[in-house]
């Protein structure tokens, strides 16, 4: 289709963004036309969110140029972006839960006289807006009383309440049900008919193929290509999205993967938790590394939290052939399980305390005398051994954990769980926020543990890590197990197809 350039509203050329030494976005090009839906497609960490944050004025680009309607555009604040006609609906909700829907939609623009808000006008304006969009929401309801899906709709209404030329939707359907998604799609259709440009971010291929006019593929912070919807198949798009070389190096195996004959140490059957995951089953054998792949929001971490007794779930868990109920982390640890959580700052590390105190934290029972005293010398030995074994770079075992680098902090948390001598070790994003060197060391530790017979469940959203480390891979898609496959012979394309729900 021939296109002239008069309908171009937004042009990006060579836009990049670095955070210190980390390049989150390298040379991004994008041309957005009015009246069309332009989808950004890429794996987690491909740079989509960074790009959106630059466009919305949350942080500035470090290079390249952006033109909005022919004029240079470099917003310093979200307000400036709004004034320039950009409306952004973020994936993370930004609503005040204790206020009403109307107050949220019209936040900062409340109809007022002499500083007093006119409630009547506020509700009228919001009501008109919501009805216009066809959203089934009561504007007088407080946000806290709404479901997650309804809150997402409020967020959308808020974004669209500005008179925008460009509407950016960042995974708007991730918490919507089918019916609510339909409402959203109708709104999108109307926006484009009104001549507005829509930038759409989603992982769901069905939606993308249905809504998009143009599709731009991003990978590792770089522009890959832009195609029109009719010009590429789903398979081709997935290949473009993941098509990188497996250039990361993984330490060699120290043992053979255990065969079918080895009895599993952990069996999970039909785990379900409404709204989070459904009918999740998997097994892991001693000495096996079981990868858990899924896109953000697919329910991987939620499954692990339930398995570890942090949240309640239906289903059956069998450890060493015996059915067990685990209703607290203490019980899980008692059964020989360990769980390195995704968020080490909040759930793993006690930053204000010494490395020594952090290392023995989950195994304090083993460091207690009969009289309740702390076995100080034994603790010192354990902490020193941890430093040596995991090559933690710290001045001494008295060093406060919060002062260590990200990679070393992660090793401290690993050391904490190793001190419990786990039979099943669950690792959720074990290398997130960790530099390349420490990454390799963590991989080596994982390999060594597997060789010693520990069963390892490794949750990750990094495809190379999953394929490079796992013996088998469980692929989750929208709260369910999409597939469980031997990793030998598995390609990134196939994994991504299962994760996006293309293979059924």
């Amino acid at each position: 289709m021939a296109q002239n350039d008069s309908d171009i509203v937004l042009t990006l050329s060579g836009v990049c963004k670095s955070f210190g030494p980390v390049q989150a976005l390298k040379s991004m090009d994008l041309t957005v036309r009015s009246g069309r839906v332009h989808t950004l497609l890429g794996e987690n960490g491909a740079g989509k969110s960074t790009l959106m944050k630059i466009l919305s004025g949350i942080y500035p680009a470090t290079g390249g140029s952006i033109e909005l309607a022919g004029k240079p555009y470099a917003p310093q604040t979200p307000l400036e972006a709004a004034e320039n006609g950009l409306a952004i609906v973020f994936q993370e909700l930004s609503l005040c839960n204790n206020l009403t829907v109307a107050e949220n939609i019209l936040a900062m623009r409340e109809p007022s006289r002499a500083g007093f808000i006119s409630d009547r006008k506020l509700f009228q304006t919001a009501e008109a807006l919501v009805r216009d969009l066809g959203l089934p929401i009561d504007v007088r309801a407080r946000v806290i009383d709404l479901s997650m899906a309804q809150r997402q709709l409020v967020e959308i209404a808020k974004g669209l309440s500005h008179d925008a030329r460009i509407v950016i939707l960042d995974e708007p359907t991730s918490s919507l049900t089918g019916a609510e998604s339909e409402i959203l799609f109708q709104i999108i259709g109307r926006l484009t008919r009104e001549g507005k440009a829509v930038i759409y971010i989603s992982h769901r291929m069905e939606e993308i193929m249905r809504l998009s006019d143009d599709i731009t593929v991003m990978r590792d912070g770089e522009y890959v290509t832009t195609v029109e919807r009719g010009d590429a198949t789903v398979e081709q798009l997935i290949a473009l999205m993941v098509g990188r070389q497996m250039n990361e190096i993984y330490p060699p195996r120290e043992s053979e993967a255990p065969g079918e004959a080895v009895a599993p140490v952990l069996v999970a059957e039909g785990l379900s938790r409404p709204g989070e995951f459904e009918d999740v089953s998997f097994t892991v054998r001693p000495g096996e590394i079981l990868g858990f792949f899924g896109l953000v929001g697919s329910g991987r971490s939620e499954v692990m939290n339930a398995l570890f007794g942090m949240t309640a779930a239906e289903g059956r868990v069998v450890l060493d052939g015996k059915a067990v109920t685990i209703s607290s982390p203490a019980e899980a640890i008692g059964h020989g399980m360990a769980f390195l959580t995704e968020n080490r700052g909040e759930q793993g590390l006690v930053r204000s305390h010494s490395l020594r105190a952090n290392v023995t934290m989950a195994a304090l029972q083993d460091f207690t005398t009969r009289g309740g005293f702390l076995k100080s010398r034994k603790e010192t030995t354990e902490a020193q051994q941890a430093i040596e074994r995991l090559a933690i770079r710290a001045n001494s075992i008295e060093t406060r954990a919060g002062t260590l680098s990200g990679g070393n902090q992660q090793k401290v948390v690993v050391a904490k769980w190793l001190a419990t001598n786990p039979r099943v070790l669950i690792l959720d994003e074990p290398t997130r926020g960790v530099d390349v060197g420490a990454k390799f060391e963590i991989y080596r530790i994982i390999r060594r543990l597997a060789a010693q017979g520990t069963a390892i469940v490794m949750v990750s959203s990094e495809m190379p890590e999953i394929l490079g480390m796992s013996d088998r891979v469980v692929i989750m898609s929208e709260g369910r197990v999409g597939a469980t496959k031997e990793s030998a012979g598995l390609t990134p394309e196939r994994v991504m197809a299962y994760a996006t729900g293309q293979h059924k």
Partner: protein
Amino acid sequence: MNQTADIAARRVQLRSFMRQYAGIFLSLVILCVIFSFANPRFMSVANLTNILQQVSVIAIAAFGMTWVILLGEIDLSIGSIIAVAGMVGAQVIGLGWGFVPALLLTLGSGALMGLINGALTAKLLLPSFIVTVATMSIYRGLVSLPTNGAPEMIMDPSWTAIGGESFLGIPIIIWIVFVLFVANHILLSRTTFGRRTYLTGGNREAALYSGINVDRIKMIVFMISGTMAAVSGVLLSSRLYSAQTNAGLSYELDAIAAAVLGGTSLAGGVGTMIGTLLGALIIGALNNGMNMLSVPYFYQLIVKGLVIIIAVYLDVRSKQRRA
């Protein structure tokens, strides 16, 4: 290898100890110097003993408060618990049950009131600030039930001996502060329970994921706070020869001040008994010194408030600079 590392570790501990208390210790020394210039009798043995006796009630309550603040919680009910404890003691003695049962029941009542605070906080997930504001009122009301608001005299010689007699030339009351200081210090710094309290206060979620029974720790800590307040109640009623319905009024604020002056972080996870003892001594020295100088009570309140702000500011700033 292991031994040298041990020594190195100990040296690090010593250095961090010096750094930790330098600010608060300096404040105490400066106060003492100022007061002894103003009145040479301030530094006499008799007066220093006097300060220790005066500060004992606050210091012991502050030991309990330190546990609670270490968890990132607060206990505003201890002033009321002090009064209830005194009244329980007076009533049991009045029944003629004798000293030991009276003492045990008094301490038991403190533990029970603390347990109620802890259970409401841990099990009903209410903020401890709200819970203890409420129980502060409830416990204060309970004090007056047996006597309709009148004070109750205590004539038991053992009970009154606690506040009046000496042992080996040192007042019994100071022995009690010393023993409870050592006991709390050891419990906090040498036992697994103390470590778990620190870890839970430092990062509750990480403690939970590491299998620490956070609710149980919370309840025990509030029980310690209640029990310490009950000991304070025994000391106070013993010194006053009676249980007063308004005993210990607003003592919780002095106890909080002592803990915070001693470097205990209201955010939880950071603090020591040594710091709290020093903090209590500062408050004691201030009260005593200003009394000796005949500073009017209302000026004393103003000065005390200012000293707390300045001392905590200096402490926070010096720690920031190091970090």
